[in-house]
C-alpha cells in the first residue's frame, strides 16, 4: 500500500464484488414477477439502501471481532457468547438509564471485561484455544440466564428512542468506532505488529523476545471493544434471549462468511475494506433473496453454504492467489 494510485486501483477491484452482486440480483429479481408490487420493482426501493447499510454495519462489527482473533492465529468460539451477554447487559442498562449512549458504554465495558476473562483463562490455563473458548462460551451462555433474571432483553430494540444505534444514522457510529479500533490496533500499535509476528512464526517471535501473554491480553482488549460495539448494534436490532448449548457460536458462524470472503476480496486491498465490501455484497444478496421470498427459508441456507465453500475454496488456493487477484474480475463472475 505505498502509492495511493495503487490502493485506489485495489479498492476498485474489490468493489467489483458488490456491484456484480447488485447487478446479478437486479437481473434475477427484475425477471421475477414476485418482486413487483403494482408495477414497482421492490428490489430497487429506497428500503434496499437502508437495509443493506444497517445490516452491513452489524455484519462488519461482528466480522471484525472474529477476524481480529483469526488473523492473530486464534479461532475464538466465545466471541458470540461475549457479544450476546454484553448485549443483554447493555440493553438492560440502556433501559434503566433510558439512554442508548449509556448502553453503548456498558456494552463496550462488558465486552472488554469478558474478553479479558477469556484471555486470562487462556493464558493461565494454557489451554488449546478452541477448547478454552468452547468452555468460556458455555460459561457466558449460562450467565445469560443469571443476569437480569434470565429475561434477556426484549423491548430495547423495539423502542425508537433506545435503539438509535440500530438504525441509520446511529448505526454508523459504533461501526465506525469498531473499524477505527481494528485499524488502529492492526496497523499502528506495537501490540498489533507483535501479534502479526506471533501469528506468522509464534516460536521465533517468542524467542526474539515478544511477551506473548501480554500481547494476547492486549489483543483481547481490542477484540472486547469491537465485540462490545457489535453487541450494541445487535441489541439495537434484535430481541436477545438467553442462549445455551453453544447456540451463540451459531450466531457467530452466521457472520463468518463475510470474514472468509472479506479476507479473499481483501487481497485486492486491505482486509478491513475487504470485509466491509464483502458484507455489503452479502447484504445486497440477502435483500434480493428477501424480495424473492427466499430470505429466511432453506434455500437461503443452502446458498450460504455454497458461498462458504466457493469462497473458501478460492482463498484456500493460497499459492495461486496472486494470480486470482490479477484476474479477480473474471474469477468473481465464475464464483457468483
Amino acid at each position, binding site marked *: 500500500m505505498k502509492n495511493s494510485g495503487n490502493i485506489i486501483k485495489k479498492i476498485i477491484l474489490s468493489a467489483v464484488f458488490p456491484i456484480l452482486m447488485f447487478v446479478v440480483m437486479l437481473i434475477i429479481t427484475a425477471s421475477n414477477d*414476485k418482486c413487483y*408490487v*403494482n408495477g*414497482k420493482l*421492490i428490489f430497487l*426501493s429506497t*428500503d434496499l439502501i*437502508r*437495509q443493506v447499510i*444497517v*445490516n452491513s454495519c*452489524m*455484519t462488519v462489527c461482528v466480522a471484525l471481532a472474529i477476524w481480529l482473533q483469526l488473523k492473530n492465529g486464534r479461532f475464538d468460539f466465545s466471541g458470540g457468547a461475549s457479544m450476546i451477554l454484553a448485549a443483554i447487559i447493555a440493553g438492560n442498562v440502556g433501559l434503566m438509564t433510558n439512554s442508548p449512549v449509556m448502553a453503548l458504554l456498558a456494552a463496550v465495558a462488558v465486552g472488554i471485561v469478558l474478553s479479558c476473562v477469556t484471555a486470562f483463562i487462556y493464558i493461565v490455563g494454557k489451554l488449546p484455544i478452541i477448547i478454552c473458548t468452547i468452555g468460556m462460551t458455555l460459561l457466558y451462555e449460562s450467565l445469560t*440466564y443469571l443476569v437480569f*433474571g*434470565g*429475561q*434477556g432483553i*426484549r*423491548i430495547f*430494540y*423495539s*423502542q*425508537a428512542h433506545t*435503539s438509535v444505534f*440500530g*438504525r441509520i444514522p446511529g448505526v454508523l457510529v459504533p461501526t465506525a468506532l469498531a473499524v477505527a479500533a481494528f485499524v488502529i490496533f492492526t496497523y499502528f500499535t506495537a501490540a498489533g505488529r507483535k501479534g502479526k509476528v506471533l501469528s506468522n512464526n509464534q516460536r521465533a517471535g517468542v524467542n526474539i523476545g515478544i511477551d506473548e501473554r501480554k500481547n494476547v491480553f492486549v489483543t483481547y482488549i481490542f477484540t472486547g471493544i469491537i465485540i462490545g460495539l457489535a453487541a450494541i448494534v445487535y441489541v439495537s*436490532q*434484535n*430481541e436477545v*434471549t*438467553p442462549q445455551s448449548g453453544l*447456540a451463540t457460536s*451459531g*450466531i457467530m458462524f*452466521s*457472520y463468518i*462468511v*463475510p470474514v472468509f470472503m472479506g479476507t479473499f476480496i481483501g487481497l485486492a486491498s486491505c482486509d478491513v475494506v475487504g470485509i466491509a465490501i464483502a458484507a455489503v455484497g*452479502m*447484504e445486497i444478496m*440477502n435483500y434480493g*433473496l*428477501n*424480495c424473492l*421470498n427466499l*430470505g*429466511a*427459508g432453506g434455500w*437461503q*441456507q443452502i446458498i*450460504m453454504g455454497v458461498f462458504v465453500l466457493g469462497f473458501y475454496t478460492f482463498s484456500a488456493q493460497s499459492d495461486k492467489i496472486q494470480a486470482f487477484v490479477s484476474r479477480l474480475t473474471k474469477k468473481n463472475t465464475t464464483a457468483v
Partner: protein
Amino acid sequence: MKKALLKKISAVLLAGAMAVSAVGCGNSGGNTSNNNAASTDSGTGAGDSGSAPAVEGKKCTIGVAFYQDTGLAVDSTKAYLESLSDTLNVKFTYTVLTQTDEAANLTKIQELISSNVDGIICTMDLGMTSIIQECEAAGVYLGGYLCDYDTSFNTAYDQVFKSEYFVGTAIDGQSPDDVTIGNSMFDSLIEYNERNADAPITHVSMAIFPTWAFPSQQTGADQFVAAVEAYNATAETPITVDPLDEESDVLAFAPLDTTYFAKHADSQAIISFAAGSAFVYPTMVQAGVDSSLKLFTTGFDGGEEANFGTTGNGTYQQNMVTAPESITYPLVLLLNKINGVSFPDQPAEAERISTAQYVINSDEDMAKFQKSCFYTKNAANAMYTPQDVLNMTAYGNPNATYADLKGILSSMTIDSIK
C-alpha cells in the same frame, strides 16, 4: 447471514410468540378477595379422602414443562403456581421444552418423571405420542396448557386424548373448534374507527403464523376478512383488506421482513394474528414506520404500553392476551386424578377448552391491564386465591363440577379486571 441467524433463533422466538399470545391476568368479577396466597389457611385432614370439605390434597409434585425458559408470561405463571403451593400441598418443579426437537422433549419429560413427579403440565405439542407413552409407563398424569395440541389432536387423537393419563388442555383462546379472534380483531378495528371518526383506518394488511403451527390463525384471518366484507356491504367508508401474501405475510417465526411494507404500501394498519410485539413491531421501528402505521396484534411483551393507544407513537391500538390463571384448568384436573377422584360430570375423554382472550382496546383497558398480575408479576393480584382453587377440586369441595371449572376459563375478560 442475518436472516439465517434469525432462522436459527426462531425456535426461541416462537416461545416469545407464545408467551405473548399466552398469558394475561385479571380478576373474575365474582371474586373480590385479593389476599395473598401465603396468608390463606388451608384445611386439614387425611390426604386422600375425596369427599370431606376443604380437605388438604395428597402431598404431590407437579412438573411444569414450559415452552421457553424466560419471559413475563413464564414468570407470572410461576408466581401464580408458587402461591398455590402451600395450600394445595403441591411442590412444583419446572423444565423447558423445545419447539422443534421431539427427542429432546422426551428426554426432558423423562427427567421430570425421574425426579418423582406425580403429574406434568406440558405446554408444547411436540412428540406427544412418545411422551404420553412415557407417562403411561410411569403412571404419571399429563395435562396440557396454552397449546391446542392440534397435531396430536389430528394425528394421534387416540393415543393422546383418549389416554386415561391425559387430562385435557386449556388453549390460549384460539381452539380450532371455535375461533373468535377474527371477529374480535374486527371489533377492535371498528372500535378504533369510532374513536377516531376523523381519521378512520380504511386499508389494512394482515400477518399470521404458518398454518402448520397455528391453524386457527388462518381461520381467524378468513373470519376477519368475512367480517370486513359484511361491514363494507353497508358502511359508507368501506375498509380494504390486502389479501394474505403467501410469502411475506406468513411469518415462519422469523420477524416480519421489511419488504412487507413495500408490498403493502397503502396499508394504514397491520392486523397481526401472529405475535406482533415480537415479530412485527420491531421491524416497523427499524423501518421507521411505527408512527405512520397502526398495529393490532395478539400478545404483550412488556413495554408496549409506552406506545399504546394515545401514548407515545400510538402504534399499538390493540393487544390480546390470556390469563395465567387458565393453568388452573389442567392443574385441578391433574390434582383430581392424583387424589383419585373425579367430577360427577367429568367427560369420558379429555377435552381441549379455549380460554377467553382479553382484549386491550383502549387506554382505559391498558390502565386496567397494568393492575393485573401479568404486568405486576405478583400473585397477590391473581384472580383466584389458593382456597378458591382448592374449592375447584373434586376432593376439596364435593360440590365442585367440571362445568364450573370450564366456566372460569371463559370468565377471564378485560372487563373482569376490577
